[in-house]
Structures are given as structure tokens and as C-alpha cells.
């Protein structure tokens, strides 16, 4: 079969709703895009453990302590499933880890913002995980088997993350004056980073069309972002919290909440490594990796001896 014939057969399989599995023929570009997307996604989960992990030791009661521990543990688990999916495409875990620690690989910028108070856990659970779930639900339909399966598993587990965040936001918004003020402050700081999670506008997203044809994406960035804004604004207003967007208004005709413009300078600065916590996040991961070297070596050495 010529390359064109193979490509046609491949695209026909995807159009039929079949999953592409490890071992099946795939265009190099498909493999490359997926390795990039999947490992980036995995890195995001791993890095995501840090801003929330900081508050496990600061949780205000026993229930919240357990819940947050479980949530952060899930994020580690999700990173694990995603690294596995990336490995099936021909890269190794060593390469994946190295790409993150040397700064070569990207991860979701939202985690380059600092967590400054306990109520940030509610904002992250509801807004950030809420945004992630929308993306993940779409990706569960992805044409590549291992990624699709990882996403289905993640979606099942992620349900509690958003709910736990939402429960916190509602409780604090209706709580003491201090709790309410803290909660509003958290929303103010996490609103725009959450919107940025959906990526650049469609008009400047180069990969979109191909990703949709290859069943890697089914909705565009702006479509998902609009869905998110509609849901979140309604629910935040229902608990008497405001959205830090002076230009926000409701378009009756379209039935949409229209946002002001995202600060794209900030977006690209943070994506390119100049956010408030970029260096700190990578430094923490590098330290864990370096401190763990003797451990990994010792366990491998013992296995050799047996």
C-alpha cells in the first residue's frame, strides 16, 4: 500500500469510530501530536499536585484533610495513566520525565499560579477541575485507544473533584464574612487562569482542523470556553459571588454570557515560562527527582541481585 492508501484506510477507520491501537499503522504526524498532547496532559496532572498539595498540611478539619489528600493522589494517578498512554506510542517514561524536568515539555499554565489560601482549594476544584472535565469528556472519544481509555478512567474519578470544590465554594460563600471574603478573593484570582485553560482563540490555533479530522479533538477551544462561562457564571451568581470581569454581560439573543478579552500577553508569558510559579514548580519536581535517585537505584540494584 502506498502512503496515501494507508492514510485513507487510517482515516476511514477513524470515521467508522474504530480505535487506533498500539501496533496499528498511523501517520508520523498523528503519533507526534499525540505524544505531545498526552505527555503535556500527564505533566499537568503531576505539576497540579503541587499547588494543592501545599494545603494538605493546612486543611481546616479531618474530613477536608482526607478529601484533599485523595484528590491530590488522584492527580498523581491520572498523570500515571497518561504517561502509560504516551509510552504506548514509543516514548519511554525516562524520556517523558526528562522532558518535563529540563523544561522542554509544556504543561497547563494554570498551575503556574500560586495558591494563597484554603479557599483556593474550592476555586481550583470547581473552576479548574470543572474546565478540565469539559476537556476530558471530549477527549474520552479520542481515536487513539490508550488515550481514550485513560480519559474514560480519569473522567470517572474526576467527578468527585469538581463536586468537592463546588461544595466548598457554596459553603464559604454562605459562611462567615471572613470565609466569604476569602472565597471571593480566590475566585478573583482563579477565574482568568481557568478561562485560559481552553487555550488560544480558534482563529490562532494552528492544529485544530487536523486534530478534529483525526478524532483527537471534537470541539474547538472557543466552543468549550463559552460552555464553561455560561455554566460557571450562572452558578457563581446563584451563590452571590461575582466574576472579576467588568465587561461581562448577557447576550439575550445568543443565550450566552459574553466575557471581556483575556489578557493574551499574560497568557503567552506564563505559557513560555515567565509565570509567578513556573520556576518554583519545576524546582520542586527536580528536587523530588534528584532526592529520589538513590532510592530508584537501590530498588533496581536489589532486583538485579535476586
Amino acid at each position, binding site marked *: 500500500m502506498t502512503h496515501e492508501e494507508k492514510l485513507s484506510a487510517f482515516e476511514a477507520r477513524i470515521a467508522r469510530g474504530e480505535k487506533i491501537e498500539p501496533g496499528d499503522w498511523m501517520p508520523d504526524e498523528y503519533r507526534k501530536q499525540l505524544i505531545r498532547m498526552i505527555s503535556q496532559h500527564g505533566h499537568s496532572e503531576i505539576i497540579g499536585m503541587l499547588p494543592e498539595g501545599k494545603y494538605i498540611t493546612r486543611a481546616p478539619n479531618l474530613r477536608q484533610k482526607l478529601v484533599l489528600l*485523595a484528590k491530590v493522589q488522584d492527580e498523581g494517578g491520572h498523570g500515571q495513566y497518561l504517561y502509560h498512554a504516551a509510552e504506548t506510542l514509543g516514548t519511554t517514561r525516562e524520556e517523558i520525565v526528562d522532558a518535563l524536568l529540563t523544561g522542554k515539555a509544556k504543561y497547563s499554565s494554570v498551575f503556574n499560579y500560586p495558591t494563597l489560601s484554603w479557599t483556593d482549594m474550592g476555586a481550583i476544584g470547581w473552576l479548574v477541575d470543572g474546565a478540565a472535565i469539559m476537556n476530558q469528556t471530549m477527549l474520552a472519544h479520542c481515536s487513539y485507544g490508550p488515550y481514550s481509555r485513560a480519559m474514560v478512567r480519569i473522567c470517572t474519578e474526576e467527578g468527585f473533584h469538581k463536586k468537592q470544590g463546588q461544595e466548598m465554594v457554596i459553603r464559604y460563600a454562605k459562611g462567615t464574612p471572613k470565609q466569604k471574603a476569602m472565597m471571593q478573593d480566590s475566585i478573583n484570582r482563579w477565574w482568568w487562569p481557568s478561562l485560559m485553560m481552553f487555550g488560544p482563540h480558534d482563529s490562532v490555533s494552528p492544529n485544530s482542523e487536523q486534530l478534529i479530522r483525526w478524532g483527537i479533538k471534537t470541539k474547538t477551544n472557543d466552543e468549550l470556553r463559552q460552555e464553561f462561562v455560561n455554566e460557571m457564571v450562572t452558578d457563581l451568581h446563584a451563590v452571590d459571588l461575582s466574576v472579576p470581569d467588568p465587561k461581562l454581560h448577557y447576550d439575550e439573543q445568543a443565550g450566552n454570557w459574553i466575557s471581556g478579552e483575556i489578557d493574551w500577553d499574560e497568557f503567552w508569558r506564563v505559557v513560555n515560562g515567565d509565570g509567578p510559579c513556573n520556576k518554583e514548580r519545576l524546582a520542586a519536581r527536580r528536587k523530588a527527582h534528584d532526592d529520589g535517585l538513590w532510592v530508584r537505584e537501590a530498588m533496581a540494584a536489589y532486583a538485579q541481585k535476586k
Partner: protein
Amino acid sequence: MTDTQWLRYEVFEKERPDLPHRNAGSVHAPDDEMALENARDVFVRRPNCLNLWVVAANQIFSKTVEELAADSSWQDAPLSETGEMYLVFQKQGQRQAETFVNHVGEVEARSPQEALCKALETFSRENVFVWWVCPARAVTRSEDGDAASLFQPARDKEYRQPNFYRVVTLMHELKASQQEARPLDEDML
């Protein structure tokens, strides 16, 4: 000494008595025993599981039906003198799921390649998209006697389940209290 992320092991979970072991993903581990424990910690954070298997990834011989159609040169491979038992797994259908291949049975063979040939003859090919075989000796299994300490703790961690959080009722009550212009029932929070 080179720093590694240890070996990769494929993990198979048996969720119910009426279901076979199914491939859930993989874990990295330095050896078989740690692989079994890591599989329990990574994959059995929520119910249900009755039994776990782990197999070093390099012990698994895998072919998709597309690969089988494209090329048969893989069949020429050296044979051992004696045969041994191989486990056979299949991916059946195209339904969206969390798990990949299912355990369908065993064959006796003198090499992974011969095992796959025999499997193709022995088991139905209908609606099958992927085949895996591995030697039975490469499988590390959880003991039934350990099931309580391995799998029960996940059941008790209800806070990992979405229905532990009564958000839907809360939002209903909130919207209702606003419409009815009355204060929110404090107990709901």
C-alpha cells in the same frame, strides 16, 4: 549506574466473579512483588476488585488484527524444546471503556509466536481487534487470602466517590431559597 524509572508491568484486574481479568493499564516497579503492590495502589483506589495480575511488559507478545493482515513474517521464530502454558487475551469490540484486552483462555506452546498461532486457531476471531499472549510463569497474582487487606480498604473510602458530595441538592436548595426569598437552611451546608 543509570537512573531508570524501573520496569513496566501490565496490570490485569478481575472486578467480579463473572468477569475475566482485564487489562487496566500499567505500573512501573523494580520487581514482581512491588509491581503487584503498586498495581493495587494505583488501580484499586476505588472498588471493585477481587484479584490482580501483573506481567512485565517485555513478556507480552502483541499483534493487532491490522498487523496480522499486513505481515506474517513474525511467525518464523525459534522454538524452545519444551512447551509451556501461555495466557491469551483479546480486545473484543469497539465499545468505549476503561479496560483493554480480556483474558480468554490458555494454549500450550514452545514460543510466544507459536502461542499466538495456536490462539488464532483456538479462539473465535469474530469482532476481535487485538491479541496478546504471555507465558503463564510471567504472571504474578494476588492471593485470595490477601483480598481483604488488598481490596477492602478502597470500599471504606467513600469520600472518593462523587455521591459523597451533595452538591446537586445544595444548588437546588439555594436556588429555591432565593426564589422564595427566605434564608438558606443552614443544616444543608
